[in-house]
């Protein structure tokens, strides 16, 4: 009902004096509403409207001014020359009217680009440490956004951010330090929120709390008894995500989630059951205690909750409960969306694996689902499930095949039909009466489309002469590919030689398809009299657990463990006498290429982090065929505190023979470079290794070790709002003296225990 041109016309009154706040506000609202509805504004008209709006700064009406800020933000990307309001905004953000300052900052940051950021830098720094919480929080949030635009500049504000963190602000954020030590911490809301933040090394590795003996664990666990549900839930969620958590450690988290299952609030029930679902994947026994509560949730009015409850039960349920569960699912599966249906099918698939004797119940259920309406993904999930039963469970084979045959009679998805036909071709001959499937296959060949017909060749496993009749027919098919394949296979079969059958029919391509494509292309480009050699193509990497990986559950079969890359490195390095005393290998980085592709030598670097040392492994290759390089070393210039202990040269590098040379660097013992000033970074050279430590405030602490990714833990707790009387506040106690710091970092740093009386705001 609003017309853009009419509204823009009305906006002309912005230029009038005196300004009528009510009318202007009304029109400005209409403009914003139009923008919100997705109305397109051309650059010219947007710019005009923007400039007109700037006149409204003359009015002192609060709401009008606030709406101007909003308009600036909305139009920042569609109008030109928005930076003309910078001075007005700067004035407002440093002015006396507190109510303007926060929003002005946020508007200002929306229009500021990298070049201008330095100009407003001092204002931002002042704002961050401002006593007014709204100002400080606005400044911090804006700084967070500005990180994306100008990392280096914003990084310098971290001192102010630290100071802000120690104040009584309700909403405070600490800015990221550097691109390799990126994190931010949010102390926010009126509630306590616990976030565990992790340090990303420049190889983008995340390292988690590895030890459940870490004193942090006690802290998280104590959060389970917090007053606020949000905190409790977050703590429970954090615990269950810890790797290597035992069932005993999970127990308190699970019991909390169990309580949430009976909460009157749907969001809480949903959160609980979703998390329990995740736990059930790895520790089904831990969730068994909740089975009763979960069963109650099956009849929950919220279908998402009900589905999650069922799938969790399917993971934790016993064999005897399967029948009951399946009956309950079938009653509501028609009501849930396709996405959930797929989840349910996958859970059933896992259950089939677990209880093969129950295949008949599940098969009935699956076939019913197959007959119902549903999208492609859903049907495919069901078909995959049935196929896996057929392939793995000899007792379920016939029933499964029968259901699938029935399905393809009336299936609109070619992919599925072809897949099932392939299966029939493979499994059919192994059944007691293979001929009963011939009818289905024959019908498909006659009635279906080309893709299905072309796939028909798989049936030749039957070696049954009557089958060759359809092949004859295929030789006269209208489609080229069908004819080609039919002719080829007919000829092979008529030779009646098993070896030929095996090579040309049964065994698929063992080579990688893209490799073959490339090789063939190459072959066609260069005229050659030699025939194309299949052996020149690299073999395909067969994905071993591909099928299983699609169904996201942890198989109960023991998994084979190939030696990891790190294990291999550890062995190699331990074999070198100079490196024998370094202790355990903590982490090996991904290889980093140090040279350009076309240089005379090619160097890659892998960093191995030990307790007190780093070994830089340089994989070098000589690319000049007329030179032999001897005693190759890579010179390193680390920063002052790091000491190069020794260099092991690669004795000689012949052309194209890669060799390895090592450099051993010792890490500094004393990391009291920590303090409040992080070291200035900038583009770090790949050979430097630097350390940064930071402590912030009384209630917030963390440390970071850059680049070699240690655990960064940030415990964030804030008392309830200052509006709340002191006695109601949750006292904070971090019940540990220091975090175990690996790698020689000083443990004498005093991390705060409980907030001192002076820090708890009165």
């Amino acid at each position: 009902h609003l017309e853009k041109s009419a509204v823009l016309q009305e906006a002309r009154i912005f230029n009038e004096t005196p300004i009528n706040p009510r009318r202007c506000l009304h029109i400005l609202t209409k403009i914003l509403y139009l923008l919100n509805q997705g109305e397109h504004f051309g650059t010219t008209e947007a710019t005009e409207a923007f400039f007109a709006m700037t006149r409204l700064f003359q009015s002192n009406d609060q709401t009008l001014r606030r709406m101007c800020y909003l308009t600036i933000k909305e139009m920042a990307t569609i109008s030109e020359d928005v930076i003309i309001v910078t001075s007005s905004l700067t004035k407002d953000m440093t002015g006396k009217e507190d109510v303007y300052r926060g929003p002005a900052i946020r508007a200002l940051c929306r229009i500021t680009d990298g070049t201008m950021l330095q100009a407003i830098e001092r204002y931002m720094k002042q704002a961050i440490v401002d006593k007014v919480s709204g100002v400080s929080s606005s400044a911090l949030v804006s700084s967070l956004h500005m990180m994306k635009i100008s990392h280096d500049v914003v990084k310098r504000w971290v001192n102010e951010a630290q100071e802000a963190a120690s104040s009584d602000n309700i909403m405070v954020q600490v800015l990221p330090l550097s691109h390799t030590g990126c994190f931010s911490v949010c102390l926010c809301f009126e509630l306590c929120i616990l976030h565990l933040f992790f340090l990303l090394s420049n190889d983008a590795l995340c390292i988690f709390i590895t030890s459940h003996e870490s004193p942090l664990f006690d802290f998280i666990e104590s959060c389970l008894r917090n007053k606020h549900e949000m905190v409790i839930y977050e703590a429970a969620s954090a615990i269950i995500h810890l790797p290597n958590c035992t069932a005993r450690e999970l127990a308190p988290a699970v019991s909390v989630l169990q309580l949430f299952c009976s909460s009157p609030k749907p969001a809480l029930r949903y959160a609980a059951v979703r998390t329990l679902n995740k736990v059930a994947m790895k520790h089904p026994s831990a969730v068994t205690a909740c089975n009763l509560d979960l069963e109650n949730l099956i009849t929950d009015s919220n279908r998402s909750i009900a589905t999650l409850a069922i799938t969790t039960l399917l993971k934790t349920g016993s064999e005897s409960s399967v029948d009951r569960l399946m009956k309950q699912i079938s009653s509501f599966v028609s009501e849930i969306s396709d996405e959930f249906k797929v989840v349910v099918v996958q859970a059933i698939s896992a259950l089939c694996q677990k209880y093969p004797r129950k295949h008949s119940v599940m098969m009935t259920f699956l076939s019913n689902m197959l007959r119902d309406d549903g999208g492609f993904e859903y049907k495919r999930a069901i078909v995959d499930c049935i196929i896996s039963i057929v392939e793995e469970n000899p007792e379920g084979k016939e029933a499964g095949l029968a259901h699938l045959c029935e399905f393809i009679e009336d299936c609109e998805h070619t992919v599925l039909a072809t897949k099932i036909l392939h299966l029939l071709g493979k499994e059919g001959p192994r059944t007691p009466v293979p001929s009963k499937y011939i009818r289905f296959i024959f019908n498909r060949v006659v009635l279906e489309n080309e893709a299905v017909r072309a796939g028909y060749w798989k049936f030749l496993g039957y070696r049954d002469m009557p089958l060759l009749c359809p092949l004859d027919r295929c030789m006269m098919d209208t489609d080229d590919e069908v004819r080609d394949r039919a002719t080829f296979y007919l000829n092979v079969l008529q030779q009646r030689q098993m070896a030929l059958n095996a090579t040309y029919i049964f065994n698929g391509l063992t080579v990688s398809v893209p490799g073959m494509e490339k090789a063939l292309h190459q072959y066609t480009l260069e005229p050659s009299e030699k025939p194309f050699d299949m052996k020149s193509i690299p073999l395909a990497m067969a994905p071993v657990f591909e099928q299983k990986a699609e169904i996201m559950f942890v198989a109960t079969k023991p998994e084979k463990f190939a030696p990891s890359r790190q294990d291999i490195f550890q062995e190699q390095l331990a074999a070198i006498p100079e490196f024998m005393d370094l202790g355990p290998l903590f982490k090996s980085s991904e290889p980093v290429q140090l040279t350009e592709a076309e240089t005379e030598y090619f160097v890659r670097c892998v960093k191995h982090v030990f307790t007190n040392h780093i070994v830089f492994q340089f994989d070098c290759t000589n690319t000049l065929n007329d030179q032999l390089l001897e005693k190759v070393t890579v010179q390193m210039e680390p920063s002052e505190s790091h000491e190069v202990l020794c260099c092991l040269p690669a004795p000689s590098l012949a052309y194209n023979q890669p060799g390895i040379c090592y450099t051993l660097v010792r890490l500094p013992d004393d990391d009291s470079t920590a303090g409040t000033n992080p070291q200035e970074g900038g583009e770090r050279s790949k050979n430097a290794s630097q350390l940064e430590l930071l402590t912030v405030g009384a209630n917030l602490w963390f440390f970071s070790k850059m680049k070699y990714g240690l655990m960064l833990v940030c415990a964030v707790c804030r008392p309830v709002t200052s509006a709340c009387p002191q006695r109601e506040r949750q006292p904070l106690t971090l019940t540990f003296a220091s975090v175990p710091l690996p790698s020689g970092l000083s443990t004498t740093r005093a991390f705060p225990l409980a907030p001192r009386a002076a820090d708890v705001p009165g």
Partner: protein
Amino acid sequence: MQRPEAWPRPHPGEGAAAAQAGGPAPPARVGEPAGLRLQEPSLYIIKAVFILDNDGHRLLAKYYDDTFPSLKEQMAFEKNVFNKTSRTDSEIAFLGGMTIVCKSSTDLFLYVVGSSHENELMLVSVLTCLFESLNHVLRKNVEKRWLLENMDGAFLVLDEIVDGGVILESDPQQVIQKVNFRADDSSLTEQSVAQVLQSAKEQIKWSLLK
């Protein structure tokens, strides 16, 4: 060397591709311990906030990331969400890799959308804050007509709660204080008798339908 973004957010594609109700986290990357993996934490929790009328039409909408870059996609998403939640009056739903919390009031539907990896209770707290603040601003008449007449108040309220996807404030009292806006009392009294009757009828109709 490439500088990564300040704080990598959970990739929207991951959530959507998983498309499983609170299902497993995206598969562990090579080299990482298999099993559950905590998402890289981010402060960018909110993906979108929108308010729809009882026909599913947008009254106010703010999207904070580019999960739905074009207007068309946004509208389609809103419609989808509306269809899924309005009839069953569900307060929490899962759709396309995202968690959506919903609150309805008279003839309005308020939604907050976040990634499925987020703490649902945080989304609920944002939603509650939004509702309570609007409740105050609109003098307890959280309905379409009042919202439309006081759209500026609604814009300001939302601006104080979420900024660019980061939760700025979740205490309704604080929000109300900062926005300092109340719906016009005078327009209430200016209503004609017919209008009052009409609005009364509508209110009754909606309360019966619940």
